[in-house]
């Protein structure tokens, strides 16, 4: 069941068309990554969904919010969350909870639960002004989910964190996906691959690619053989590339990368040839092109 339908969303700031017509759907309990380079329009898209920026045209239709306030259904964490510095973490969560419609005691219980879940329980009575960046990020996630929204939107939740913080926040998001749909923006494909089922790839305000990660892999990934020789890598590689239909070969630092159609066939062919001529092989690796390379190609186009 879809949580929200986005229909032909457009937005321009002065002369710059930031979003050029987005169409997509988000389903319940799915984790979707909004991927794209800086300036691709990720934050603007999330802000429009959160109601903070008004789209020029198009529609955002939340299921079950035809009459009621759609803000009940969403939780949002901005890229640089700012809080009331003079409040303590616990006070802020209880405040946010009550504003989201929880009763005083519900807000209290939920705040306690989330402080534990996000791992900032020991700092709950400290002023937010004294929190570190990572703690603010966690507090931000906690306030976004305090009213159990159907859709949680997180704008670059891990980009500003150190590796440990990043890991913990990703694990937290993995837990969250059992309760709500998550839409989060990132410019790092790795983060998306780790916890997401689907991605939306945004480039210059347009959706250039979307779908499940598995689907994208079969669509875009190619088998790859990396070879390195003790010497004359380029010369040997060129000779090998004449052997069979290799779709492309390029020299990548110390080794040569071949994109091949039939991996089994290519492996046998290469290895036999290398043995026969007794070439000084130091590396032979079979892998697949990374999705990252695929996206790099899209962006550079």
């Amino acid at each position, binding site marked *: 069941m879809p949580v929200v339908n986005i229909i032909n969303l457009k937005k321009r700031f002065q002369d710059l068309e930031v979003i050029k017509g987005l169409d997509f759907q988000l389903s319940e309990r799915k984790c979707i990554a909004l991927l794209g380079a800086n300036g691709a329009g990720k934050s603007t898209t999330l*802000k429009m969904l*959160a*109601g*903070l*920026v*008004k789209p020029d045209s198009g529609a955002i239709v939340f299921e079950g919010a035809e009459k009621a*306030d759609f*803000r*009940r259904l*969403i*939780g*949002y964490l*901005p890229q*640089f*969350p*700012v*809080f*009331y510095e*003079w409040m303590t973490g616990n006070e802020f969560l209880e*405040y*946010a909870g*009550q*504003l*989201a*419609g929880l*009763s005083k005691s519900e807000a209290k219980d939920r705040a306690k639960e989330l402080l534990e879940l996000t791992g900032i329980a020991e700092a709950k009575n400290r002023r937010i002004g004294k929190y570190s960046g990572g703690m603010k990020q966690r507090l*931000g996630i906690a*306030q976004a989910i305090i*009213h159990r929204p159907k859709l949680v939107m997180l704008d670059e939740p891990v980009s500003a964190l150190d590796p440990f913080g990043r890991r913990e926040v990703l694990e937290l998001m993995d837990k969250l996906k059992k309760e709500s749909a998550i839409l989060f923006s990132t410019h790092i494909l790795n983060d998306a691959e780790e916890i997401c089922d689907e991605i939306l790839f945004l480039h210059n305000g347009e959706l250039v690619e979307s779908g499940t990660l598995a689907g994208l892999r079969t669509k875009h990934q190619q088998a790859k053989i990396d070879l390195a020789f003790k010497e004359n890598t380029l010369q040997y590689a060129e000779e090998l590339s004449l052997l069979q239909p290799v779709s492309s070969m390029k020299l990548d630092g110390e080794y040569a990368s071949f994109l091949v159609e039939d991996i089994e066939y290519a492996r046998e062919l290469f290895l036999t040839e290398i043995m026969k001529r007794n070439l000084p092989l130091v590396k032979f690796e079979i892998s697949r092109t990374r999705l990252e390379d695929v996206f790099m190609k899209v962006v550079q186009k």
Partner: protein
Amino acid sequence: MNQWMTLFKKEMLEMSRNFKWIWVPLTFIMIAVKEPLTLYYMPQIIDSLGGLPEGAVIELPVPSAGEALAASLSQFNTFGVLIIVLITMGTIAGERKSGVAGLILVKPVSYAWFVTAKWASSMILIWFSYFLSYFLSWYYVGVLFEFISFADFLQSFFVNGIWLTLIVTVVILFNTFMKSPGAVGFISIGIIVILSLLSSSLPHLLEWSPALLSAYSNAFIMGSNPPDELLPSIIVSVVMITLSLLASIAIFKRRELA
């Protein structure tokens, strides 16, 4: 209504955490009480400062109690107004500028309650400080000069208070469509100054102007009859307060917060 109380309590808590409950009343008291004291002790002050030629005799007319209290009242309309603008100019604009408003207003928060909770808490702080300081001033005038009837004092207090209320409301109105507290303050003060200047230089054309309320409120403590224009002036002020508040809510609803 629960949500309104939550918002309102947060405002009250914020004002105590940043000590507004202490420094705003104190500043108001200093502003107000200064006048009767300096008026009363003026001969001694001049004496102790010296610098007058030998034998010079200055006759300072002793001000009446009403004049002393009116001097206090006029201080509220200069320094008092300035402080009111300073403490309210960032109440919404500041939160929007820092970005915390974005975090709060993606929650199902009523825009009307958000604005009115801010307004109500500012009102309470300002009326409290204003009452305390004006009351003390009235007391000192009583001790040093003579006591003015408490009923007259209260009447002037409420009439002038309406003008201060209008100022708070106008500052909140500008808060809803400007993102910079500095700009809100600048424009608010500009408008107040223009309105006051126009009203005092063209009193026959603008006799119903809210800016004249403070002048009218003097009548009570000076023992004269309040002018006929007092009532229209109060009505105009109350209408303007209501309209500004409604406009604030309407504008705030349509704003992009990010």
